[in-house]
């Protein structure tokens, strides 16, 4: 079954995919830097009237918690990556590398860059997990 992106059910399936990934378990094994929040910017044309945050409670190779949060809550995470809907769609489809996206300014990062760089393999594995989720995009 396909899960609508972005939505609560999509995030749950994403969490399940992350936690069944042997690659992420290994590459994220030493991650203790706290939650990462992915923020999808508001875009009324695809039905997103306000920002949506996807809160990933990552700890030592496991996604302990995942939830949809408001922008205000999202900003409390030590790492916040923000992009518009079309960019996140590219990321989920595996068409945009998130590190490249950040370098090109297509995705904005708030948080300690050296930590993100050190866990570049883990971030790639998280993207791989996202692309494995059977996704129905809200604009399709």
């Amino acid at each position, binding site marked *: 079954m396909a899960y609508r992106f972005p939505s609560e059910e999509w995030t749950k399936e994403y969490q399940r995919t992350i936690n069944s990934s042997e690659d992420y378990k290994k590459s994220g094994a030493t991650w203790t830097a706290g939650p990462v929040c992915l923020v999808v910017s508001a875009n009324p044309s695809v039905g997103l009237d306000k920002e949506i945050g996807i809160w990933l409670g990552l700890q030592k190779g496991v996604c302990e918690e995942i939830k949809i949060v408001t922008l205000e809550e999202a900003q409390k995470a030590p790492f916040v990556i923000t992009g518009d809907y079309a960019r996140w769609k590219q990321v989920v489809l595996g*068409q*945009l*590398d998130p*590190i*490249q996206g*950040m*370098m*090109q*300014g297509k995705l904005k*990062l708030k948080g300690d*860059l*050296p*930590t993100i*760089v*050190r866990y*570049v*393999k883990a971030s*790639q594995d998280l993207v791989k997990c996202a692309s494995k989720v059977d996704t129905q995009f809200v604009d399709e």
Partner: protein
Amino acid sequence: MGGYKNRILEMDLSTGKKDISDVGEDDKKRFVGGSGLSAKLFFDRFDIRSNALSPENPLMVMTGPLTGTNLPGTSRFVVCGKSPLTGIWGESACGGNFGSELKMAGWDGVVFMGVSEKPVFLLIEDSRCELHDASDLWGMDIYQTTDFLKASYGDGKQVKVFAIGRAGENLVKFAGIGNDKAHFAGRTGMGALMGSKKVKAIVVRGSGVAEPALQEEYRSLLKALITKVKASIPARALREMGTDSGLDLGMMTNDVPIKNWTSPQDFDLSFNLGGPSLIEKYLTRGHSCYACPIGCKRVVKVAEGPYKTEEGPGPEYETCCTFGTMIVNKDLAGVIKANELCNRAGMDTISGGAAIALAYECYEKGIITRKDTDGLELQWGNIDPALKLVEMIAERKGIGSILAEGTRSAAAKFGRGAEELVVDVKGLDAPMHDPRGWHGMGLGYAVSTRGACHLQHMTLYVEQGMSAYPETGLETNYKGPQSEGKAGMYLISENLGVPCNSACLCIFVLGCLSASDFAEMVRVTTGWKDFDVAELLKSGQRINLLKRTINALLGMKREDDRLPKRILTPLSPEGNVPDIDLMLREYYTLRGLDEMGRPKRETLEKAGLGELISRLCLTGS
């Protein structure tokens, strides 16, 4: 016209005669400055066939129109001449503060000709230019020389020093030249050329300013560009982690060469050697070149242990590879020590490290033995013998004297298949970016006019998706391990990157800006009214064709535009390699080259380079 002082100092070291020259306004615009203008001078005025270490080969130290302005990334200058390492056109750009100071002293550049009887240094204080005896400095390393000259000529205001070390004095073919200990013109052996002329250093102090032509536009552009650079993520990565920020990312994308280009990804290496580790363990502070809002330079200290160092310039990404991943050394302190030794000796850490990695592999394969290495056991993972080899190369002792001739020459001497272990193009060792992950970079290595080079073009940024220049026709989503379509990408990247070393703009800053920003920087500085992106790219094409013509006259042919066997061998059964034949074929067509690799007659005519045709003896169309 802004951007120029309209004065080039010419020093004939054989006679001690000084002269002041200038080049025509037209050539300044056609070749922009820096390495482009140097190539024009070299082509027009010198016997390009003379031996690189002979008195006839000039050493040209040139600024560009942007040098010394306050626009971001404009500290740079370039050192040019025939390369002692490759025997073809040689150039090496440098950041720091020497170029800007030279411009403020009222000079666009210095051209050394001839050879001095005894060691000398050149002291420039505005219009006053004097050669001084440097016999007492000969034998000092770069740090000692710099400290001594700064103490002797400081007079309350800092002088800027550009000096060679023991490697340059001993004509190590890949010797570099160091500006204030931290900034190096490392590539193509310009330090050996300086050493051959017995010039130990140039000391400069300037009291003027570099005045842009269009003051008002300059001021608003300055403000906008600084804001833009500071906001960009590549700048933030460089500021926070230095150029070594690329190691973790590069490992992910198969960009990092390991074990002399023979091993696949090793995340343990990048974890220990990358920018974040440097910050955690050894960084004492950041440091900037003149007028740079990025500040990618590292100041480091190894406080204790076998690799203890004083506080000083830290290693760049390339050095963390050559003395780290290339010999499978995980000890970052050891890399810092190697960097200090190379800096002091004045040695290119890329070619120096490549020579040492070659020796390690030859040792492993039994091509050389302990007898050849003066008892050193060159075991992968152990940096200690590499540190000894740096000193032996600089002093030309034992096997060091063989390695000091460069990898190609050393491999020929070792024989028994060693030649196939060398990763170079036209005699210049490849920098630390593996074309098997990024095919466009492979084309860049094959056709760059100074040999394997990642800085004559913007491919690193464009192909890896760190920067995009849509106004030039470049796309934004290139796939690394793919050769189709890369010639077109590379051609534009080259046309954009070449003027970087002529206008003298830092490539890292250009990586944070647009091509339009770059063109605007040149326009407001020089006052060239019609200088836009199209003109910028045309100048890149023109300068490239001139340098290619010089190389053709020096015997370079299509077969020299190649990739070494190792790069054409996959790292794993499922790995892939660049289709260099396809990319070359397409590039030759797009660049307008004939089957021998020379620019065609109509290509030169179209580029406004008719004066090159007769020298190349091109007939017909």
